[in-house]
């Protein structure tokens, strides 16, 4: 029993994390209150961070927790707090035609899973040492990602920083008080 548990430990951890991630995603759709949905999404994000660790992506697991759980979720909760709760939980939260939506979803999901099984089952999994090697020298996942990011993908990195700048300016412009005052005047 113990030997079986140890032999299949990573699989057991994966299925537990996957169950938490999917349950969190279901909660996002099912909960009426946006605060509950946000906390459910937080649970899903944390489980996905665990999945990243199983995939030898330790740096991205840390980024996932810092950016999503630390940044984006706090932003969501702040906005929910700013907005009057009664405007969020009124009538008409769900579209009524649920049955056709569920049928379409089932078909799409079945097709996608078929494709995923076929595509994901091909070839052997590579040696995970490749994910921590910098120019052939084994260091760590963070060093390896940084090496790839700053050497091979420097231009996309700079472009993304411009995107972030534009998003920041856009959020500030959208959040100005004058936007509402002009409409009222």
């Amino acid at each position, binding site marked *: 029993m113990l030997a079986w548990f140890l032999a299949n430990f*990573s699989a057991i951890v994966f299925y537990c994390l*996957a169950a938490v*991630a999917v349950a969190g*995603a*279901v909660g996002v*759709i099912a909960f009426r209150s*946006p605060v509950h*949905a*946000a906390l459910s999404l937080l649970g*899903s*994000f944390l489980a996905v961070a665990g*999945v*990243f660790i*199983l*995939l*030898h*992506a330790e*740096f*991205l697991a840390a*980024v996932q927790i810092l950016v*999503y759980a630390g940044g*984006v979720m706090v*932003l*969501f909760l702040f906005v929910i707090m*700013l907005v*009057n709760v009664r*405007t*969020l939980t*009124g009538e*008409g*939260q*769900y579209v009524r035609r649920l049955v056709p*939506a*569920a049928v379409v*979803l089932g078909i*799409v999901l079945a097709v996608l*899973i078929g494709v*995923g*099984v076929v595509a*994901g*089952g091909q*070839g052997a*999994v*590579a*040696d*995970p040492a*490749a*994910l921590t090697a910098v120019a052939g020298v084994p260091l760590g996942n963070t060093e*390896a*990602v940084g090496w*790839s990011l700053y050497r091979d993908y420097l231009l*996309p990195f700079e472009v993304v920083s411009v*995107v972030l700048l534009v*998003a*920041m300016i*856009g959020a500030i412009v*959208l*959040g100005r008080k004058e*936007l*509402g005052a002009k409409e009222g005047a």
Partner: protein
Amino acid sequence: MIATSHYVILSLVLFALGIVGLTVRRNFITVLMCIELILNAANINFIAYSRQLGDLTGQVFAVFVITIAAAEAAIGLGIIVALVRLKHNVNLDQVNVMEG
């Protein structure tokens, strides 16, 4: 060692749940959360194939996806704040200013 197809299926389930949320919910904040779910599912795929192929490019692109997701959340929530100031509502069916 878990096969890559398991990770791909987890990613697909999360993606499908995100799509369902997009179509079924009318609350703007919940719709934004569903977009985050979809981007997260894309990240799982990127990283699963990064492991399968032993290539770090997938992880680098996951960093970019996380960046875009953060920018999208900031803009979306800014729109929500502006919307609440204007219409006192976040129900997507009642936001029809641009319908003409």
